[in-house]
């Protein structure tokens, strides 16, 4: 097992390297550039100042030189400083990560807590009216654009009913609240975004669970269990579910990068200070060091997530050996 993991890690290195080359190439080939976005069309900034800035940021050097410099810093785990605000990239990511982790972690938790029972229920009542209602609801959640649903919910629960705050992660007077008040402040700001993102994610997990369950219940050992006279719910929830959940492990592994990646649209609508917005904003402003930093971390997590999924899978399913 350890040898397997080591081998996978070693193979991942050239992949990671390739990803960085492609990302670096793509962002530098995109027309425009850092100084172009921020200073062109500002009559107070002369072309000389722009040329000087290009030089200070090292953007006047050939691309391969810029790449080698970047890699040599990365090897020392130095992601460089953001062009936009001169702060270390790792710092920027560190500032944004907690908000995204909190939101996506909670919503993932809710998705699993809801989607698995829902999926099992659908499978048990396969093709019944309840099953169809659930199917419609989860697909509505899947297909409704989150930003639209978010705006409607903000209008309803915020402006009209006044039950919940509209956006942000805490109130402007958060610092003045007591400990309980602060806690409730966070909770109330979390309700809408967690609910809406969970609603959107319900479909895939519940469908997976449902179809896996339907597959598993056709197996002989389930028939045996039923023949023994075990109650239906025990057969489903104890005997079948365990095996039906195996593919979910793969999904968890693949969800790892999504957990920290955040969603740009979602975070923009909810004014959530997370990673999705950071990635989008740095891409729009050609903040090369930040884009590269986020890309590297994302790539590492994808690779790790894949390895993790394989390892977990092997450890729970005796039919698979590494």
């Amino acid at each position: 097992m350890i040898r397997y993991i080591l081998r996978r890690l070693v193979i991942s290195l050239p992949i990671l390297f390739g990803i960085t080359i492609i990302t670096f190439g793509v962002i530098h080939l995109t027309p425009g550039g850092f100084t172009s976005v921020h200073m062109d069309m500002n009559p107070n900034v002369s072309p000389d100042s722009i040329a000087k800035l290009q030089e200070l940021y090292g953007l006047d050097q050939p691309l391969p030189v810029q790449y080698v410099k970047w890699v040599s810093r990365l090897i020392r785990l130095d992601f460089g400083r953001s062009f936009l605000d001169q702060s270390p990239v790792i710092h920027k990511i560190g500032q944004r990560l907690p908000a995204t982790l909190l939101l996506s972690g909670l919503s993932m938790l809710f998705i699993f807590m809801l989607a698995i029972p829902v999926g099992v229920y659908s499978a048990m009542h396969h093709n019944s009216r309840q099953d169809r209602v659930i199917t419609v609801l989860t697909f509505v959640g899947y297909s409704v654009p989150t930003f639209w649903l978010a705006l409607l919910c903000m209008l309803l629960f915020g402006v009209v009913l006044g039950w919940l705050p509209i956006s942000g992660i805490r109130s402007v007077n958060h610092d003045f609240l007591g400990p309980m008040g602060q806690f409730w402040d966070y909770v109330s700001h979390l309700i809408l975004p967690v609910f809406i993102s969970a609603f959107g994610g319900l479909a895939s997990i519940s469908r997976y669970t449902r179809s896996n369950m339907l597959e598993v219940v056709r197996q002989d050992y389930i028939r045996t269990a039923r023949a023994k006279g075990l109650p239906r719910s025990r057969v489903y929830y104890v005997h079948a579910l365990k095996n039906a959940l195996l593919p979910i492990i793969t999904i968890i592994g693949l969800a790892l990068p999504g957990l920290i990646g955040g969603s740009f649209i979602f975070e923009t609508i909810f004014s959530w200070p997370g990673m999705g917005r950071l990635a989008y904003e740095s891409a729009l402003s050609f903040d090369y060091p930040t884009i590269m930093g986020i890309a590297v971390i994302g790539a590492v997590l994808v690779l790790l997530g894949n390895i993790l999924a394989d390892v977990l899978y092997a450890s729970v399913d005796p039919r698979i050996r590494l």
Partner: protein
Amino acid sequence: MSNYMRVVAMLALVGFVTLSGCGRMRSQTQVPDPSRTYPPAYGDMIVEGTIADPAILNPILASDSASSDVTSQIFTSLLRYDKDLNLVGELAESWEISPEGTVITFKLKKGVKWHDGKPLTAHDVKFTLGRYLDPTVKTAYRSNFEKISKSAVLDDHTFRVWYAEPFAPALVNMGSMPILPRHLLKGRDINTTDDFNYRPVGSGPYKFISWQRAESVILQANPEYFEGRPYLNRVVFRVIPDMAVQFLELQNHGLDMMGLTPNQYTGEGSEPEFTDQFNKYKYTSNQYTYMGFNLKKAIFRDKRFRQAIALSLDKEALVKGVLEGLGSVATGPYTPSSWAYNEDVKPVAFDQLKARELFVAAGYRYAKDGRLTKNGKPVEFTLLTNQGNRNREQTATIIQAQLKEVGIKVKIRVIAWSTFLSEFVNKRKFDALLLGWSLARDPDLYSIWHSSRMGEHEFNFVSYKNAEVDRLLVRGRTTFNHERRVRIYHRVHELIAADLPYVFLFVPDSLPAVHRRILGIEPAPAGIGYNFIKWYVPEGFHKYTK
């Protein structure tokens, strides 16, 4: 899915939408009676919405407007504009320009203190200027100061700069330079002074308290501010990147102030639930939208052709259609709030009949199908504009329709901003473009209209050349006498308007809304922000009491 299910799902959605849409605003708070006067009081807090998170709170390194909105409350400069857009002293008690216009001497106010209590002196001014000119500092504004040949501290409160030749914008450039504290930054690499760049120490009306990235910046009134302690105790800038959500937050009282779009201003913003709680303001902005021609292209070289196009466009209809009437028709390179604006220049009339005559006079013919042709070929051109600006996209569509009426086919291309600049504008690969200028208060437009500014990355991208305008622009920036400058720039306005290198389209209005509990706001040519420190919430109406 069965039909039955489909109907249920639709009904549920429709019900939800109507429920959300018909609701009335819940939170109505007590606001001061507008017919009464209330004495000013200290306290409370104002929450402003901003689309983008500031990049960095050191004004020398920042080049985004979100940053300067914040730093302008924290830092001060030698001069500033008053409510009528005259330059007045801020840190400077007085200033003197030598008769030949090459030496400027600033006398600083005494007793001004940094937020950490240290005195602010002429050494700080000299230090700041030195940073702007330091080639290792990543500032975009170096060129504003490159004409300076020498600078000196004469005594603790007197500072002097020498120029090789007279340069009128020098006063504004020097005067609007935010002064940095030497005692905190001396001998350090200003690009990486993280402790200062994210926790700035200034000398302005508000002190920095905290900054949650992508969330909010909080400032606290500076009781020692040399022009008097601001009444509002705190200012919070809340980052809300979506305009629709910003408006919801305003309606929900999560914000006290934001700039409205014309739609919001005339739509929900004119409902009584809104106007009971918010004051709306409207004043002309210092920006304009234009259609610029690439004068290097044969088709646009003929002035009669450009005039005919200008005559074909109904500018009033654009103001009505795009800005809901909240703006005015532009007449030239200056906007009505500027002293350089020449009121005698009238907008080009809307007269498609005359336009047709002009086209014919210029050698164009109308084909049987109504299309305008030259040498048998139909006349058409491409209008470029940038993505993400709905006003411009709408304007382009209206222009397309109006020019179709006079037989010209216009193709519209909407391109992402950075590609638009680097591949089309900078390389001069365009026929016509739809863009806007946001102008500085000094009317020196040398960089936009002088014929020496046609190089790549330079701003005379339409390749406009008029010898008299060139001469006047040079004279305007070397003359300090205000009356003479007024005459010069009025003439520039007139000449450029007549030459029509652009069709000047419209000047949008600024449309801020502020919560009614906040009093003391007096709209003026400079807008509403000039007397921010005098804004107050009367006793008994404070919302944030702690």
